[in-house]
């Protein structure tokens, strides 16, 4: 498949944004259930929500570059019953709205207690919005992952690993981004966030390894036998019917040759997972701030490569019909 840069930016940016927002809510929950009395300021949570909102907004802007008729974009919420793409379009503004409310409630310290439990713990408004926010971010991870995982004609994509990978990568980069916000704000949550960011990065690394292994051992995606219904052991294409290009020869193929892909896989594994997890661990265990802050920009290069490869490695069934020009 041809990687579209709009989609690469969309998926990496909103994934990071969702991970960051989930990290914030997890951090707040960590304080709520914890025994300590100290807590990070509302300003930290508001700043974090603003950064998350900005990431989601940038992703939304990137998504418009993918459409040829963005002015009709609103129509894309119509088929949420059947289309994961439609569900994503619904969930993204929902996450943004909740992130806005979460940030505003924290900014103004508007946290009336909604419920008190038997163990003297209570649920206030910010935490309640936070739970809704984390849930919608989690659903958005699933929706975005399923957009690809439900395309059953691309075997590399049609697996639960697509959703698992995407979610873990989002959590990894999101927690790392949140750790930077915490470091800048000098928040108590910094080590908590850095530690979990390192853990999620390692988990994402492992999941990516499993996916790479799985894709390497896939059966061939298509046979000419069933494609043209001729029961013969040896069939080859003489002509695809035209000498120029068509949508089918541009959208479903990458121009970069197969000899480059191993290098890109190496770049992805080092920049996307190995280096950032080492830096995050250094930032967590040794409280070495430059390492903590450097992890995310390095990881982002790796994650763009990861998304690019995700598309480039997808072999669509239709390619069986476009193997030879003449």
């Amino acid at each position, binding site marked *: 498949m041809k990687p579209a840069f709009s989609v690469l930016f969309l998926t990496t940016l909103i994934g990071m944004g969702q991970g960051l927002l989930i990290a914030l809510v997890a951090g707040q929950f960590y304080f709520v259930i914890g025994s300590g009395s100290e807590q990070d300021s509302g300003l930290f949570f508001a700043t974090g929500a603003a950064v998350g909102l900005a990431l989601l907004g940038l992703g939304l802007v990137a998504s418009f570059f993918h459409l040829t008729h963005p002015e009709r974009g609103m129509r894309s919420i119509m088929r949420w019953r*059947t*289309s994961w793409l439609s569900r994503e379009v619904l969930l993204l503004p929902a996450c943004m709205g909740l992130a806005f409310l979460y940030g505003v409630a924290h900014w103004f310290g508007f946290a009336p207690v909604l419920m008190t439990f038997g163990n003297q713990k209570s649920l206030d408004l910010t935490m309640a919005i936070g739970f809704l926010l984390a849930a919608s971010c989690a659903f958005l991870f699933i929706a975005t992952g399923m957009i690809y995982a439900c395309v059953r004609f691309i075997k590399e994509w049609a697996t639960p690993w697509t959703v698992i990978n995407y979610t873990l990568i989002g959590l990894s980069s999101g927690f790392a981004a949140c750790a930077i916000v915490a470091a800048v704000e000098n928040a108590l949550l910094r080590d908590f966030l850095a530690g979990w960011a390192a853990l999620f990065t390692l988990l994402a690394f492992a999941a990516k390894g499993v996916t790479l292994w799985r894709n390497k051992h896939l059966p061939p995606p298509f046979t000419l036998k069933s494609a043209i*219904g*001729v029961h013969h052991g040896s069939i080859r294409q003489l002509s695809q019917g035209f000498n120029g290009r068509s*949508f089918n020869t541009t959208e479903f193929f990458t121009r970069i040759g197969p000899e480059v892909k191993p290098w890109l896989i190496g770049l992805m594994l080092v920049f996307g997972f190995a280096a950032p997890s080492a830096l995050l661990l250094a930032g967590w265990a040794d409280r070495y701030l430059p390492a903590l802050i450097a992890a995310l920009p390095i990881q982002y290069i790796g994650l763009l490569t990861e998304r690019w490869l995700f598309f480039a490695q997808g072999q669509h069934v239709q390619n069986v*019909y476009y193997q030879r020009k003449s």
Partner: protein
Amino acid sequence: MSRKQLALVIDLNICVGCHACVTSCKEWNTSGWAGPLSDTDPYGADPLGVFFNRVQTFEAGEFPLTETIHFPKSCLHCEEPPCVPVCPTGASFKREEDGIVLVDYDKCIGCKYCSWNCPYGVREFDTKQGVMKKCTLCADRIYDETLPEDRRKPACVLACPAGARMFGDISDPASEASQAIRDNAGFQIMPEMGTRPANHYLPRRKTMLVIHNDELVRADNPLLKEGELPRPQLSDPFLDDITSW
């Protein structure tokens, strides 16, 4: 299969790969009210264009025992179209009344997601109009009552000089298309994808002619020898004012 399902039946035994269906399809559909099927750089070095129908050529076997198969490919108007439910706007739809899968160009946002969900690669994106396009089974002419009844067929069917393409309702067992599928072992392509394509193909068939020895000798030769027959007399009866001299 009670609902009407219009479809094409393409006989691979007849198709000679002349591309007449391709050009007539392009001509008809680029001239219609829905706007042209755009081409970029059509006469240049790197042309890119939208077609609803392509004829591809395959070869089976090893030289010299090979067989050439010309394979016309257009939207199969699946009965379980995977491209329809994934469309976020509802621009891609399967028409209830006749089973044609269509795109509403006024609703399409150009996300191309439907094309990812078609295993046959028959949807083509029009970069100039910014919408996804595909075969309409000539929905604009098959119901056109200003045309004589025998011309109310898709352009490709009318154009095929060899008669390799049939058009009809495959849910009606009495239709010509259904009969052709039944009688000639018509098949669907990529049945394992679960799309239940409506368009069917008829397989290539071996055409054998058995000639027995006695058929090589003229049995109606009264003089038992080859050569010109004797001239009849002028008084002999003749047929239809034509005489043999």
